């Protein structure tokens, strides 16, 4: 008869890194589905490409670092990085962009800093910024929602565009006879319109918004929200970061909307457009590069939310998730240093 002897506090959890990461990917599926439904098969092609490149790169680096290959590959972290990058970039971006991005994320951002658990920055977002800074034209021309495109892209033509040698996808599309395929995202449209002197309300009457926050984008964000709630339910992520991001965006954009509704779009647009929900539940909650204490997480999330709003409204780029997350990543060690949880038996004043 064998008694199980364990040290306190006697809680057995079976949550390994691989399980956590795999659940993150599972919860992404509704959002990926919505994105595929509204923006075509490009997202799936990018996903397949990104995952295969990520696993190859990870294996290669592990061989170079003389570390065990299979155990690292099976922790699924490369899978998460690749998936996040693949759904963040435009679905019909040329193939070499996702390859460059994933290689940068895995080799430079993750493994040069020491691999999983040592990276200062979120690999997917660092790669996104690299791509955005390097190839601004390709990164800012998103596909038109399927319902607005005259000839929606099917799988075959998506493949053709992604793997074509042409420089920009628009020119390729004109050759193929597709029209109105590349267009700006709703946030980009608003930004351009505001700079041209239109009011926010006038901008929102355009076809791409169809009366709400943007065709497709609303449902994509709702699906990411659902996936995120599943993650919360499964206790893969904590509530603090996501809540802080959404609340701070609501407060900032509500304030702007109250002061000047003509030049600021409503909080609803900010919450359900662009990558807000994806950032709040899947990107900012990366356990490695985020703050770790509960109060620290609140500050970290609020910082991301405020930065997203500020950069979207006053900055040069239409969406700001990647920049906001990277800037907050830089502050995370600092936040952790000053917001230490009180040690049991010590008064909070002594904690510092």
């Amino acid at each position, binding site marked *: 008869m064998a008694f199980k002897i364990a040290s306190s506090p006697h809680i057995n959890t079976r949550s390994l890194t691989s399980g956590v990461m795999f659940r993150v990917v599972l919860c992404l599926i509704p959002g990926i589905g919505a994105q595929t439904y509204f923006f075509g098969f490009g997202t799936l092609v990018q996903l397949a490409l990104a995952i295969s490149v990520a696993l190859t790169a990870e294996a290669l680096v592990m061989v170079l670092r003389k570390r065990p290959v299979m155990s690292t590959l099976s922790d699924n972290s490369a899978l998460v990085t690749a998936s996040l990058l693949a759904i963040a970039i435009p679905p019909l971006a040329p193939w070499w962009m996702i390859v460059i991005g994933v290689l940068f994320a895995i080799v*430079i951002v993750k493994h040069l800093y020491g691999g999983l658990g040592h990276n200062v920055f979120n690999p997917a977002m660092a790669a996104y910024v690299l791509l955005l*800074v*390097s*190839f601004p034209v390709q990164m800012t021309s998103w596909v038109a929602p399927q319902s607005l495109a005259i000839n929606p892209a099917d799988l075959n033509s998506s493949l053709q565009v992604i793997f074509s040698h*042409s*420089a920009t996808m628009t020119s390729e599309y004109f050759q193929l006879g597709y029209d109105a395929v590349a267009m700006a995202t709703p946030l980009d449209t608003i930004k351009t319109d505001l700079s041209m002197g239109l009011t926010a309300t006038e901008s929102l009457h355009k076809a791409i918004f169809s009366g709400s926050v943007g065709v497709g984008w609303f449902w994509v964000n709702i699906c990411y929200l659902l996936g995120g709630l599943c993650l919360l339910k499964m206790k893969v992520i904590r509530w603090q970061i996501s809540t802080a991001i959404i609340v701070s965006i609501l407060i900032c954009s509500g304030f702007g909307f109250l002061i000047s509704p003509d030049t600021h779009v409503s909080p609803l647009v900010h919450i359900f457009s662009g990558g807000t929900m994806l950032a709040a539940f899947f990107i900012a909650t990366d356990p490695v590069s985020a703050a770790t204490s509960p109060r620290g997480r609140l500050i970290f999330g609020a910082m991301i939310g405020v930065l997203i709003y500020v950069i979207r409204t006053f900055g040069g780029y239409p969406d700001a998730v990647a920049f906001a997350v990277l800037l907050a990543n830089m502050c995370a060690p600092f936040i952790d240093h000053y917001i230490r949880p009180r040690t049991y038996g010590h008064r909070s004043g002594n904690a510092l």
Partner: protein
Amino acid sequence: MSNYSEIAKQGLWYNNPGLVQLLGLCPLLAVTATITNALGLGIATLVVLVGSNILVSLVRNYVPKEIRIPVFVMIIAALVTCVQLLVNAYAYGLYLSLGIFLPLIVTNCVIIGRAEAFASRNNVLRSTFDGLMMGLGFTIVLVILGAGREILGQGTLFAGADLLLGDWASALTVHVWQVDTPFLIAMLPPGAFIGMGLLIALKNIIDSSIKARQPKPQVESIARARITKVG
């Protein structure tokens, strides 16, 4: 003579101003977008470095210790002004593309660093040689970084070499590949930082492989005598 080879080794490799001392990073990162710019600034720095080492070494016994730094800076500033005027006169295109970084050579820590650390303690010949080697080491790093960034960013090598070397040099321009979409980050400052980091990493790899190949000194192993008391 081994003394001189030691100076050369220090300047070109073991104490390379770009890769090991990490001095003069501002021009190193700012002007290395093309080989031509890198080479131009490298040569300008080399000339100033050799000149300042010679002059500092000549006056080293007459300058009171308390005011040596201002004197060195004056010497360097005078030399930089000469070089700036020369480049302005003979390579105007390069003068324009180097911009503020040409006069900023005066603040390059490599130069004041060598003046203080080497030239003010050694004779003229050795100081000249040290300036030459340090300058070469710096220039080589600049050129390698410039080559990498130019290939990635523009797909060319030696673009605009005629600015530096005269009209015949425009034949030097090599189109390595045709880029439809330039890899902008390589041309921007972040690309310079990443490229620099990769170069330093490469040097460290080479260093550690050299170290690994050297025969290890035999360490006398200390055998531990174990005494077990029986009974």
